[in-house]
């Protein structure tokens, strides 16, 4: 793609145009503020696992800032070497790919602890946006985006498979709850709630969806899935492809309106929550016509209103909680899951640090789709493994399916011997 001079020049022109676009919306504030103090290293789980200069958050940001300086500042244009300004050459773009996709999950912990207080993840997103605009998103991640755009879900699950999964789950649920009304509803117009799930729940972990259906049934909720657009994830967001992210958001919101629901409830998915709840309206450039909440907020509401009754003795083993970065540090939902677990499990212990300060598990930012960075991803989970081990917990609850995948691998690799569960699974297990 970057084979000859003409291609290279065209790519550079496209990249600089994308950079200019990405800098609108205040990102340029942050591109001008980094002082390269080098104090951000320990805030980053990847740097902690491999403390090399290129893993410093400031160094990753500098890859993007160098291009900004080249195209948007006086000294960068006229004396590029003085300010570390860089052209969009094929080599520089390859280094940018490695820095912003391969060495950063966009978890934002470095920004929280930055001595200046700048949004490092926003800078990384500028880099991803530039690369997406010139077709340099890593292949695995791009494939996932394409799946979502072409089939409506990131795992390309056919509609028939969803329907058959919903049917056998409904049969099991009826048996378990002893009630013929307990089932997984699909494409039911006029329901109160449209529930979006991670396709992973359909394909590999259907018990998570069954648990949600069981709790909804116990609460007397009126809900449905959509067989067309049920995917809570948004890999356009991870890729830095705002057009794809916007399209995915638009489809779901239009489907919600077509079904006539009153509220969209998002399954336990960190980035899905952030993308749909916070970024989506800005991609669409309009306010949503109906509220969008995390299922955690809904579950807490059920408990507070007495719509479901739980017995913590049904979950006797020690449980700790992993905070997904996009849900907590970027999404502001940190307390509902804690209040839920305190009521549904007998022995709940916090990790240290926790909430906004929690370390990324290493599975965010689309890392799970990019196999070329697999070793680095698992290595970067070392600090999370130590956090979990220190709690002595037997179960790690996490309201995010990407985190759950990574935590499963971490548990195996670091021999933690813990179970990974969604919060709703623990609520379901505690139902009386």
């Amino acid at each position, binding site marked *: 793609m970057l084979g000859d001079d003409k291609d290279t020049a065209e790519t550079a022109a496209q990249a600089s145009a994308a950079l200019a676009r990405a800098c609108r919306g205040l990102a340029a504030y942050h591109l001008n503020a980094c002082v390269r103090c080098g104090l951000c290293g320990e805030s980053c789980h990847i740097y902690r696992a491999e403390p090399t200069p290129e893993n410093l958050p400031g160094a990753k940001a500098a890859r993007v800032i160098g291009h900004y300086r080249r195209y948007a500042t006086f000294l960068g244009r006229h004396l590029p070497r003085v300010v570390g300004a860089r052209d969009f050459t094929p080599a520089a773009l390859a280094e940018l790919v490695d820095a912003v996709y391969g060495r950063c999950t966009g978890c934002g912990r470095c*920004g929280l602890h930055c001595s200046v207080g700048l949004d490092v993840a926003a800078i990384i997103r500028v880099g991803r946006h530039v690369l997406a605009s010139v077709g340099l998103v890593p292949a695995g991640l791009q494939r996932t985006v394409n799946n979502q755009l072409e089939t409506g879900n990131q795992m390309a699950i056919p509609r028939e498979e969803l329907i058959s999964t919903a049917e056998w789950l409904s049969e099991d649920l009826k048996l378990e709850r002893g009630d013929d009304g307990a089932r997984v509803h699909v494409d039911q117009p006029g329901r109160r709630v449209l529930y979006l799930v991670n396709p992973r729940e359909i394909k590999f972990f259907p018990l998570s969806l069954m648990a949600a259906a069981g709790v909804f049934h116990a609460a007397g909720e009126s809900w449905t899935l959509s067989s067309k657009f049920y995917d809570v994830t948004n890999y356009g967001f991870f890729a830095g492809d705002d057009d794809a992210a916007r399209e995915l958001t638009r489809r779901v919101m239009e489907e919600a309106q077509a079904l006539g629901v009153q509220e969209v409830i998002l399954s336990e998915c960190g980035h899905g929550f952030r993308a749909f709840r916070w970024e989506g309206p800005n991609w669409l450039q309009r306010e949503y016509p109906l509220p969008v909440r995390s299922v955690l907020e809904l579950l807490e509401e059920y408990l507070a209103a007495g719509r479901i009754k739980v017995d913590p003795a049904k979950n006797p083993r020690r449980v700790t909680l992993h905070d997904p970065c996009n849900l907590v540090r970027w999404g502001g939902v940190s307390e509902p899951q804690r209040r839920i677990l305190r009521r549904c499990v007998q022995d709940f212990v916090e990790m240290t640090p926790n909430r906004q300060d929690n370390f990324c598990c290493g599975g965010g930012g689309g890392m799970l789709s990019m196999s070329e960075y697999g070793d680095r991803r698992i290595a970067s989970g070392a600090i999370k493994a130590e956090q979990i081990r220190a709690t002595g917990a037997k179960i790690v609850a996490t309201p995010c399916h990407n985190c759950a995948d990574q935590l499963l691998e971490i548990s195996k690799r670091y021999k933690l011997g813990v179970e990974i569960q969604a919060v709703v699974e623990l609520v379901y297990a505690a139902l009386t």
Partner: protein
Amino acid sequence: MLALAKAIASLAIGWTLVALVTQVIAARGGGRRDYSRRAGAPWKGVLYSFTTGMTPAHKESVRLHPGKFALGLVMHVGVIVSIVGVVLLLVWPTGALRVLSFLRLVCAVALVGGIGLLFRRVLSSTMRAISSPDDYLAILATCGLLTCSSLFPMDARGQLVVLLYAGLLFVYLPLGKLRHAVFFFVARGDYARRLGYRGVYPPVRARTE
């Protein structure tokens, strides 16, 4: 000669102000309306970020690197004092001389801090790897100002040196790394405002402390 130096310094300060304001406006790019439903108070986020959020208890980088942070803090206090001194030299010379002679020690301590940071950048392989010439230039320029305001006697010759040096510094300030003098506030404020809007800032422990 002193009058000429004052004119040069004044023009340089004017250039810096105009350039920085222009850069901030350009970086703002018309701003961004947030269409998502608000969950918190942006102002609370900003307040937290500029107060409790800067303390070692809340800022890991400060907690883990107290020495380096102290060097930076001391240097920046000295720089602010020096710049205030230069502005006073232009508008109220007698007062400036009193203030600068009183605060000379502050600037001298700040100079030590600045030299410490320069050494750190030169001696640490990690810091060298992430530094561009502009990073060294910025700290050298800053140390130069601190040298002028702490070591030079504030007679007519000393004032001349301080004003001319400040003139040069202010010409360079908006072009290189030193523009963080303004972008520190706007970037920090922007980030904190957005986190406040989402209810992330102030964090739960800050609300309950």
